């Protein structure tokens, strides 16, 4: 019986390890578990966009299972069995750059909002430091301070390094007091 063999321990013959599992971009689970995620619709959209072949399979599978009655019964249960979706904070996606004085004639550049684009701040700070040959550090929850006035350069460098950030999304806050 195939079913019994399925659970057998030990490497299977004819299978190359490591196995590559496709994960859903929306719920991060293997795509076969998407249907148990509360935001299944979004998963479907993601599948349609990124893996059209898999999406077709899911669609066919959906038609086979008798929904209707079963679905209704399930909904009644509610309560504990429902996975809660993690709430992603969908704030305005924007990067702000400003200049702050440092001493009498020197200044530093403050960049905030990079983390709204899911950018690793540590990596970003290192990149800025290397790029401008200056000190650069993560100073707050979502703040990078670059030593030296490089504000104007940033408008070119940021969209260059992270294509998802458009130049229009970077706002210039001008000079700010420390």
């Amino acid at each position, binding site marked *: 019986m195939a079913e019994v063999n399925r*659970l057998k321990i030990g*490497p299977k013959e004819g299978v190359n390890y490591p*196995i590559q599992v496709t994960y859903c971009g929306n*719920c*991060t689970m293997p795509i076969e578990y998407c249907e148990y995620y509360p935001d299944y619709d979004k998963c479907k959209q993601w599948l349609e966009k990124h893996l059209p072949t898999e999406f077709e399979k899911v669609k066919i599978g959906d038609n086979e299972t008798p929904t209707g009655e079963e679905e209704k019964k399930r909904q009644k249960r509610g309560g504990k069995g429902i996975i809660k979706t993690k709430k992603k904070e969908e704030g305005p996606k924007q990067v702000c750059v400003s200049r702050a004085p440092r001493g009498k004639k020197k200044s530093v550049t403050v960049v905030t909002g990079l983390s709204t684009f899911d950018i690793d701040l540590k990596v970003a700070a290192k990149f800025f430091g290397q790029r401008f040959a200056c000190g650069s550090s993560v100073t707050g929850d979502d703040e990078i301070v670059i030593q030296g006035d490089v504000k104007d350069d940033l408008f070119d460098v940021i969209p260059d390094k992270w294509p998802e950030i458009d130049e229009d999304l970077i706002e210039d806050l001008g000079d700010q007091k420390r």
Partner: protein
Amino acid sequence: MFKKFDEKESISGVLQLKSSVQKSIRSKILDSYPHLENYLDVILPKKDAFKIVKCHDHIEILINSAGEQQFFRQREGQWMPTLKLLHKYPFFLPMQQVDKGAIRFVLSGANIMCPGLTSPGAQMTEVQKDTIVAIMAEGKDHALAIGKTTLSTEDIAKINKGIGVENCHYLNDGLWQMKPVK
């Protein structure tokens, strides 16, 4: 274990391991999972310097040099693989299959109850008490949780009540969500 785990709050530090400690961890893992023998060099290369992430509740997570989570344990317990690793090498844990109805509860972190392991859609492979097992699901190819049996499979079938497998790590919990550690 990782239900309330949060990447930012729960981590208290990252440690580089001494090579002697690395060796002992390797041998411990090999002891508990003999089927990994041919693959352990790929998972944890001998020359690789792996680190330990210390977290709250005495949880330790073993990461490789790329920062990917590989194994975890609580206190001095047994090392358990993360689901990402298990998906790649699904063969080295004994598997238990639960029926369809249980999937959504397991995915929200519930322990696996005996009836979910004995119903027609479910299947068990024989194991002792306190074994690390992979939880598979009816009609699905991949594991959805990793747990520790609280009863032997014989007892699960006999008693058929209460918790059969303690859920340690499941899809979309804190450890699953965790990004590679730098």
